[in-house]
């Protein structure tokens, strides 16, 4: 009896998903972004153009592995990921093809897209310092490098070195100052930590709010999201303020989420159209407001919170460099004992 059940179950699942994909009006996306606002945008795209958007979301590296395994038989048209390092890794693995769209290139600044059109940025994220309202004086200007100084001993919280955002931050330091300096910085940071690295960026913010530390390094959108979140989150967010680091120097470290056309994309044109849609002013604005990220297209209206924080100087390093230095960054952090 269970055999019969199994067969029926199998057949029905097969039928349920083996829908005909023979028609022309679709585009398939492997995305490491899994925000709800993305889904809304895809729906809007489908309404506007009639092109269906198929999505598999997941972890960036896993999707990349899947793309590699599938090779020329892959059904994916677009690969969207967060963090420039991952875009670089994908590029190195030969997963992308040039989109060759001048429209796209016109909309996005040079440092936020690949020189040979292999990928293009969709949103920006700044890795900022949040400081306790009570225990850190207002108006102070800080840099990442300041945080390794003795006066910050036992006052810093940050997440694990396994997180890609930290890795990219260290990668940018390697690019600017070399690996030894980056390792010294990492060691100094670890020495100043208030607690073992644990949790995500929001946990760091909560830790500062609760008094476990005085400063943390986080991506700005987490703080902005908390300001719009549950009452506990809003409470915690009100206990900290934002400081854009290195405003007197090279600028705050900025990372991107981006997308690229896959090499064997079956629906190339539809994919380009989707990219153009995502980089339209309207979509950029929706993205920014939905997730509290910064858009890549200049001149797009920011979300109220971000607008309130004002403009800042961003590190103009090309995002490719973040990827190129990633393996070295991981080794540096390992040697520095950054968990």
């Amino acid at each position, binding site marked *: 009896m269970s*055999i019969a059940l199994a067969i029926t*179950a199998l057949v029905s699942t097969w039928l349920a998903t083996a829908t005909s994909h023979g028609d022309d009006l679709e585009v398939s996306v492997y995305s490491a972004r899994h925000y709800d606002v993305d889904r809304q945008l895809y729906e809007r795209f489908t309404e506007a153009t009639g092109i269906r958007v198929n999505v*598999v979301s997941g972890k960036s590296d896993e999707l990349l592995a899947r793309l590699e395994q599938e090779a020329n038989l892959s059904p994916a048209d677009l690969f969207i990921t967060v963090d420039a390092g991952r875009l670089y890794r994908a590029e190195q693995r030969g997963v992308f093809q040039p989109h060759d769209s001048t429209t796209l290139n016109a909309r996005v600044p040079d440092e936020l897209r690949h020189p040979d059109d292999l990928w293009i940025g969709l949103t920006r994220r700044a890795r900022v310092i949040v400081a306790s309202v009570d225990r850190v004086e207002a108006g102070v200007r800080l840099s990442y490098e300041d945080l390794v100084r003795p006066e910050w001993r036992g006052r810093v919280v940050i997440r694990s070195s396994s997180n890609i955002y930290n890795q990219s931050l260290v990668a940018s330091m390697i690019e600017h100052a070399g690996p030894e300096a980056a390792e010294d910085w990492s060691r100094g940071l670890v020495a100043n930590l208030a607690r073992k690295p644990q949790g995500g960026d929001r946990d760091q913010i*909560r830790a500062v709010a609760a008094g476990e530390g005085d400063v943390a390094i986080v991506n700005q959108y987490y703080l902005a999201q908390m300001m719009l979140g549950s009452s506990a989150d809003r409470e915690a967010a009100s206990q900290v303020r934002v400081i854009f680091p290195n405003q007197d120097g090279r600028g705050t470290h900025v990372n991107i989420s981006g997308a690229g056309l896959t090499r064997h994309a079956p629906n190339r044109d539809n994919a380009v159209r989707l990219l153009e849609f995502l980089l339209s002013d309207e979509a950029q604005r929706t993205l920014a407001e939905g997730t509290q990220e910064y858009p890549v297209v200049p001149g797009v209206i920011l979300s109220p919170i971000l607008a309130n924080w004002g403009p800042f100087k961003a590190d103009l390093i090309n995002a490719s460099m973040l990827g190129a230095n990633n393996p070295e960054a991981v080794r540096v952090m390992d040697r520095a004992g950054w968990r």
Partner: protein
Amino acid sequence: MSPRDGDPPEHHTQVGRPEAQLPATQQPSVEIAAGGRNQLRSKQAKTGGWLWFAGCLVCAVVIASPLAVVIASLLHDSGGAWQHLVETRLSSYALNTAILVTGVCALSLALGVVPAWFVARFDFPGRPVLAWALVLPLAVPSYVAAYAVTDLLQFSGPIQTSLRSLTGWTAGEYWFPSARSLGGAIVILASTLYPYVYIASRIAFGGQCAAMSEAGRTLGLSSNGVLIRIALPLARPAIAAATMLVAMETIADFGAVEYCAVDTLTTGVYRAWFGLDSQVAAAQLSTLIVAIAVCLVAVEAVLRRRQRHYNTTSRCARDYRSTIAGWRGVALCAVCVLPVSLGFVIPVSRLVYLTREMPDPEGLGLVLRYGQNSLLLAVASGSIAAGVALVVVCAHRIRRQRASYIAKLVCRFGYALPGPVIAIGVLMLAASIDRWTHSAWRSVDGPLPTHQLGRTLTDLLFAYQSRFSGIAIGIIDGSMRSIGRSLDDSARSLGLSATGVVLRIHAPLVRRALLGGALLVFVDVVKELPATLMLRPFNFDTLAVRVYQLASEERLGEAATAALAIIAVGILPMVLVSREIDRGR
């Protein structure tokens, strides 16, 4: 390794065999007990069963193939990645894994055996509810438990915050246990995995003859003495086998362990894969994990062999439960309430609180749709696993060859492998198969829709079987052992073919075990995350995926809705499993 596993040795004379045999009208022809490899088998048993044997081998090959693929990639050079690993991390991975597994097993034993003894032997206030409630934590995914518990216990969480406001302490002035630690991971994992030990213990204790403990009493043992000297030793093989299961799950766990910031071999596989960008170092670590899995499965097989001598006659009366009233009854109740609270009540209440604060932003409709997908996968996988288990176990039963014995064991390794490892193997395999079919087809027809396999759920179901069918196989194997061989022999001599014996004798007798195995696989599939993330087709998200999507954005509060849905889906099967245990007494 003798192929004669699991069955009483056969002697010339009538020996003390389990009563569950028919008085055979035709005794099987000469059976000689010998230690050697070649034995005369009964004439009937030698014929037929080829189809089942082949089926068993096919299952084993299919289930083990992702594993094999992963190991095969060992043949490549790994560059400096392995070196780097060995220098910095390998010893701490291995040490952490060892401590984690030991701790989880020990704690699971404590949380599972003692309540099982109380529930099996005594009547006390709350027992009827606790009997099935103790099984519920299996419905909670380990990563969900980790989220809930760390949320509760962290510095900015409700417990420490109220503690600070009560006492006026500030940061650094007091010590508070951290959930995000090796100790925390041990407690969290044990609280969700102990039900395996509880179930095995309950079945074992419940199946013991009343006469055993009563004989012990008349021979001078107190009640506690009976537990220690009689009930526990008799139940030990079953309990130990369940503990091996817990160990395998612990090794394979990724979500909870990573969240608690513990570096184990499994998280090391991840790090090697992505951080150090070396597929091959990851494969090497995976092989280490596989080696450990092999050891565990081997130990379990040895323990099962010992178990066969402890099977009691089916004629034996089961124990009455003695009533314990008053404060002692309350104490028993409290001891049984503790594991349920740890593994179920506490996480679920926190999740309920969180979901009321911040429900899933996409609303219940989306969650329901994901739930449908989860259910579909789970039902299919459970049924398939039961079928596979029946084939594999019965094949060995019909034709007892070394090959089918090994096949049976091999199918169980998957359970100790982390989901990502299996998923990687499946990816590689599916891709190769795809390319092959594509080129084969192309020679016949025009261009074909790309990646047929990936468009359906085959990849995923395949991975689930590789990972989980071991559970079903273990359960059905255990149940099959209590069926005397002479049943088979009589049936064959009465004209049934090998297939007939399986379908009309074996299957009905192990029906309960089949259901139990299918239900446990069901629950595991609903909870599964890593392989699902990697292998699912387009537009097909499950509840676990939804939890991950929100959790990875650190929106744990909003993830609570989907997490509760996962648990809700798992509760009913667990209650059913518990009822089956009761009925099986």
